[in-house]
């Protein structure tokens, strides 16, 4: 190759380089990693539907940048999540990672977020520790202690003094169990037994029987949403309510996705959570309507985490004037506040966790369908685990 050829090649290469550079500047890519298949697919569907709905409503241009959403299926397996996150960062050069249906999936991605300085929005996974694993993780979903503690506070004031807890034996379950016990005993309540059920467990008879034999005022349950219906059914089948045992649960058990199918067994069950499709606000009514139209299902609490996650990214980009540099974007996310369909929310600048209202709700029939109807609000709840550490 003579010198002239070399020169041409070099110029062409340079041209190509600047061309891709310019392209990268015009597009901001968001890598959305979700369980789209496998047992947690419904979480993925909800969040994907919400992210797309948000983009349809708000356009794909922010501060002069085109937003591109790349949705990847991690099947709910941590090593797949990690591999996809790596690919998205290295090959696709995404500016933001988002999604994460389960705690281990978010934890697997934490080191990548830190190393690549890519803001990582956790939209669903709900153990408290997640945001502590990387300074680049921001959460728009919720934490289990955050939604559990208000219920534990409410219970002793409403005639529930003795409780048996029943949780799934994994990170979020342990979080819920601990948060409930701490707050409940502080309020003068007594936890008679703490039961943990294995994740793969189709039969709740022994646990419910144990709860019944302990003769509590109420049974507190946290299990992931699909499992919840089995617990509800067996609770009803065993007629524990007739023995004077009330059922109080976190909102996961009464997931809006499946609540209506549970039938009348769910009526009257009290729960606490940060989002209900029946939340009475104009923002939420508009969202429910739009989501039903585009996805043919009710939005649930994971979905709203996805919607707000997209909103946070848009807001941050507006604030940096379109600069998608990871660190700048992250700084712009801290302290953001807005009115979400679930009510007023903000991102705690110190913990990067969402601060939000938590509601105490009761299952009621509205227009022939079952909904979690909110009747009490605890305002601006922070994750109590991190608040206690300070």
């Amino acid at each position, binding site marked *: 190759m003579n010198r002239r050829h070399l020169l041409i090649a070099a110029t062409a290469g340079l041209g190509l380089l600047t061309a891709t550079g310019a392209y990268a500047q015009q597009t901001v890519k968001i890598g959305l990693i979700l369980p789209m298949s496998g047992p947690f697919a419904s979480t993925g569907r909800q969040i994907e539907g919400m992210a797309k709905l948000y983009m349809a409503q708000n356009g794909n241009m922010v501060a002069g940048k085109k937003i591109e959403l790349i949705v990847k299926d991690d099947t709910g397996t941590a090593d797949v999540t990690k591999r996809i996150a790596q690919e998205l960062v290295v090959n696709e050069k995404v500016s933001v990672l988002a999604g994460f249906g389960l705690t281990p999936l978010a934890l697997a991605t934490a080191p990548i977020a830190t190393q690549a300085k890519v803001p990582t929005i956790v939209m669903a996974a709900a153990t408290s520790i997640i945001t502590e694993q990387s300074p680049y993780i921001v959460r728009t979903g919720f934490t289990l202690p955050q939604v559990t503690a208000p219920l534990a506070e409410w219970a002793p004031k409403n005639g529930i003094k003795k409780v048996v807890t029943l949780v799934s034996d994994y990170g979020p379950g342990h979080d819920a169990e601990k948060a409930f016990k701490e707050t409940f005993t502080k309020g003068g309540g007594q936890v008679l037994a703490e039961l943990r059920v294995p994740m793969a467990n189709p*039969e709740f008879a022994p646990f419910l029987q144990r709860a019944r034999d302990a003769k509590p005022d109420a049974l507190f349950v946290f299990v992931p949403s699909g499992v919840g219906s089995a617990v509800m059914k067996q609770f009803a089948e065993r007629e524990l309510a007739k023995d004077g045992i009330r059922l109080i649960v976190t909102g996961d058990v009464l997931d809006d996705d499946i609540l209506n199918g549970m039938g009348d067994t769910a009526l009257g069950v009290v729960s606490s959570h940060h989002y209900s499709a029946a939340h009475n606000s104009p923002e939420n009514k508009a969202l429910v309507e739009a989501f039903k139209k585009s996805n043919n299902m009710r939005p649930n609490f994971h979905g709203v985490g996805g919607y707000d996650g997209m909103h946070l990214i848009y807001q941050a980009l507006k604030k940096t004037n379109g600069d998608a540099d990871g660190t700048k974007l992250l700084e712009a996310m801290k302290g953001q506040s807005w009115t979400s369909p679930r009510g007023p929310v903000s991102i705690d600048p110190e913990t990067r966790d969402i601060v939000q209202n938590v509601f105490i709700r009761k299952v009621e029939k509205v227009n022939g369908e079952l909904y979690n109807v909110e009747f009490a609000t605890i305002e601006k709840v922070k994750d109590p685990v991190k608040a206690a550490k300070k």
Partner: protein
Amino acid sequence: MLTILFDGFAYGMILFVLACGLSVTLGLMNFINLAHGAFAMAGGYLTVVLMNRFGVSFFLCIPAGFLVSAALGILLERTLYVRLYARSHLDQVLFSIGLVFMAVSGIDYFMGAQQQLITLPPSLQGRVNLFGIQVGVYRLFVIAICLVLALALQLVLTRTRFGSQLRAAVDDARVARGLGINVSLIFTFTFAFGSGLAGLGGVLGAEILGMDPTFPLKFMIYFLVVISVGGTTTLTGPLLASILLGIADVAGKYYVPTVGSFIIYTIMVVVLILRPQGLFGRATTR
């Protein structure tokens, strides 16, 4: 104590109804049919669709679940399974697990990934007082069906002409053919029957176990534990194994919750060490 015993028994019966179809296809036909759960899921989803979309009574769903799954069984047996009888067990495993994944994605695509729930008719809800213990009506109902089923199956296999023809066909298809037995018809019929039983298990299990697209994978382990503990050559084996496992599982989780979920596996390991052919299996001479 008695309640635990009853719950364990009922749970065992659900395991049995799910697994007995497999002991027909796997045990009697010597075909490693890991897609068993997919047929169970077919029954379960049929119930969900019939009850929730068309308001069909649960009692009608029970025979419907059996018949539709059996029809599905005939279809698949004639088109796919029949090609794999002579192949190695590894091929059969790969083939049937492939079917499972197809069923999982198919259901996911058409029905969505969320849990599907049914509401039992009022006559099956609640509990009754039986000899001083509180028992769920539905569980009692499941137990009754299972016992009748187990008895009928055992009689068919050991006392009827069809039963002996089937056993002959499995043991040596060539000789059986020589004796004028229509082996392929018998196999089709048996396979359909096994699939129908799976579907029945799905219908009865839908209420207690729940229905979602991962059902066949989630419960595969339970079918296999029951079959391996019980042995595959008889039906009484899986029946007694299910009862044993159900009671051990429920009692274990009640009395020693911290290790309770391992008990079922511990029993399996111990049984397989002592009797590799299962509790009630005859040692194979082949």
